[in-house]
């Protein structure tokens, strides 16, 4: 059923508009939000693979030059898109479920932002048109800012405005890069651009091509929160509501991989491209972990760890072989799920104690044993302990860097994993195991059942991917073989 491909983007957008318009009627908007949220992962799983040409404009073959042109926006839907859209859809469903159960009176604009963000990352994954990607990139930035500003945490407005100012510098620069590519090739369709670059229609040594790489790369750094944007990215995670942060980090990961895959297809002939990606990824890994070690606010700590994990994804893609890119994409999928688990779990702690400073917490193991157990497994998965999913992807990354002849990188990756483990155990100890401080009040506060349910579902996926990684890696490997 190829007709379902555009519906993956259209349904959340229509739902967002309807809920925002009918937010006066509380029950209707709750039911609508719940039904659409359930549909999100189901559509992705039910749809068939294929291409969708908007407006029915099929590619045109130029008889004189023998080149095929794509006159309209094209969505391509393969296994990679399916698995990532299903993961985001599932996460969006869990987040919306937590939100609906938490508040009696739901806010239409907030649900609008959640659905709009989900729709835009879906479109970014599906699209084969670089300007279309840019438009949804901007919508996503606005949705992220809105999700941060809607939280009740102190100084969330300041953080949102700061993120937005940085974003409005970053995205025109990316648009300038797209403009350079358009000037070189006369097209915004990525397949056409790739054809032009790989068949010598564009001089890949020309400075204009290099400048366009630099500008789009800058936009990518901003979108994915790699250095120099790591501080602001972890800042927005810590200022959003915990369930919002769980969704925000999945938006970051997906915008990162969708832009980097496009850049990889266009610029893979340039040597400097892979060097740049590996350099910034290693920087992100080291900075993320070392900054996480110094934090006392545990939301901020998870934010920095999430940025450090992004470095692993970039590393896999930067190494540039089929195996390493598969490992990087598998790591991206794992990170979406594991980091969401950690954000929701620590959010449950914030819910129960109203305290985010690790120095003032302690002894929560006896009050919330279920949350403690699930968080422990999530943290171990992030650090890469067998038989969980983080272990499989990190093992693949280490093997990939050894195969490419960079043992230094594999040693570094192992060291960063160990450091991640240390950071996590330190925070875990001070929250759950340390004797309870006298002035901490934890009586009579229950963790919402929906949060436990969401964590359990995510945990099942983590264990499943850890035991049967082949379910995903084979399909991703086929996809990667197609773009190399």
């Amino acid at each position, binding site marked *: 059923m190829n007709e379902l491909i555009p519906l993956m983007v259209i349904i959340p957008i229509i739902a967002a508009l309807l809920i925002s318009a009918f937010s006066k009627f509380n029950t209707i908007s709750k039911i609508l939000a719940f039904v659409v949220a359930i549909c999100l992962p189901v559509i992705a799983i039910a749809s068939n693979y294929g291409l969708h040409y908007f407006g029915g404009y099929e590619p045109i073959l130029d008889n004189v030059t023998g080149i095929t042109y794509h006159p309209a926006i094209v969505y391509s839907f393969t296994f990679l898109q399916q698995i990532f859209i299903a993961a985001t859809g599932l996460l969006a469903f869990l987040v919306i479920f937590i939100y609906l159960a938490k508040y009696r009176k739901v806010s239409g604009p907030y649900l609008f932002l959640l659905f709009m963000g989900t729709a835009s990352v879906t479109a970014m994954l599906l699209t084969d048109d670089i*300007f279309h990607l840019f438009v949804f990139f901007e919508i996503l930035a606005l949705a992220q800012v809105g999700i941060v500003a809607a939280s009740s945490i*102190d100084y969330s407005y300041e953080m949102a405005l700061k993120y*937005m100012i940085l974003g409005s510098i970053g995205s025109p620069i990316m*648009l300038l890069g797209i*403009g350079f590519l358009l000037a070189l090739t006369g097209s915004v369709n990525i397949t056409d651009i790739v054809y032009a670059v790989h068949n010598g229609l564009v001089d890949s040594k020309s400075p204009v091509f290099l400048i366009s790489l630099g500008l789009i790369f800058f936009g990518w750094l901003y979108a994915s929160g790699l250095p120099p944007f790591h501080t602001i990215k972890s800042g927005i995670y810590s200022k959003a509501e915990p369930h919002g942060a769980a969704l925000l980090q999945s938006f970051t990961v997906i915008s990162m991989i969708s832009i980097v895959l496009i850049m990889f297809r266009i610029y893979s002939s340039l040597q400097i491209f892979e060097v740049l990606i590996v350099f910034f990824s290693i920087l992100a890994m080291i900075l993320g972990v070392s900054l996480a070690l110094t934090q006392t606010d545990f939301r901020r700590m998870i934010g920095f760890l999430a940025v450090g994990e992004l470095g692993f994804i970039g590393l896999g893609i930067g190494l540039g072989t089929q195996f390493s890119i598969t490992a990087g994409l598998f790591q991206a999928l794992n990170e979406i799920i594991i980091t969401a688990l950690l954000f929701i779990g620590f959010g449950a702690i914030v819910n129960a104690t109203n305290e985010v400073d690790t120095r003032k917490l302690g002894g929560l193991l006896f009050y919330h044993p279920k949350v403690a157990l699930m968080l422990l497994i999530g943290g171990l998965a992030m650090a890469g302990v067998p038989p969980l999913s983080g272990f499989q992807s990190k093992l693949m990354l280490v093997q990939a860097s050894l195969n490419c002849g960079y043992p230094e990188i594999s040693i570094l990756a192992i060291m960063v994993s160990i450091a991640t483990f240390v950071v996590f155990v330190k925070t875990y100890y001070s929250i759950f195991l340390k004797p309870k401080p006298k002035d901490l009040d934890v009586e009579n506060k229950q963790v919402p059942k929906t949060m436990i349910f969401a964590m359990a579902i995510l945990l099942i996926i983590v264990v499943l991917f850890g035991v049967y990684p082949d379910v995903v890696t084979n399909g991703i490997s086929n996809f990667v073989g197609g773009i190399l």
Partner: protein
Amino acid sequence: MAQTQLAVLFTSTALIIIGLYSAIFIDNIIKKIIGISFIEEGVNLFIVAIGYKSGGIVPILMPGMDASWFSSNSAYPLPFGLVLTSIVIGASTLAVMLAFVMVLYKRYGTLSTKVMLADTSKKEEYDE
């Protein structure tokens, strides 16, 4: 004239540099936001200049025009379509940022970025 296209490229570069300068170095938040809108305008101008053809015609196919003559003489319309979207995105981003500024002004009573957007972790320590 190719002169026009070159001059337009210079203008767009100048706008981008003015915008970047003000977005990074000017302390007043409203001027910072105006600088950001100048960056956007510069980029839009650059993309329109890509599609421009010196001595060409407006890319609208009127009845009675020969299609092959039209295609060799008209400007390239694809960049124009992109710029339309980009202008609207820029305006909406600007509006959202100004709304944030209005809210934050009530809290701080100043438009200075140094006060308004200072490092939040320091502010939290100060509160304690």
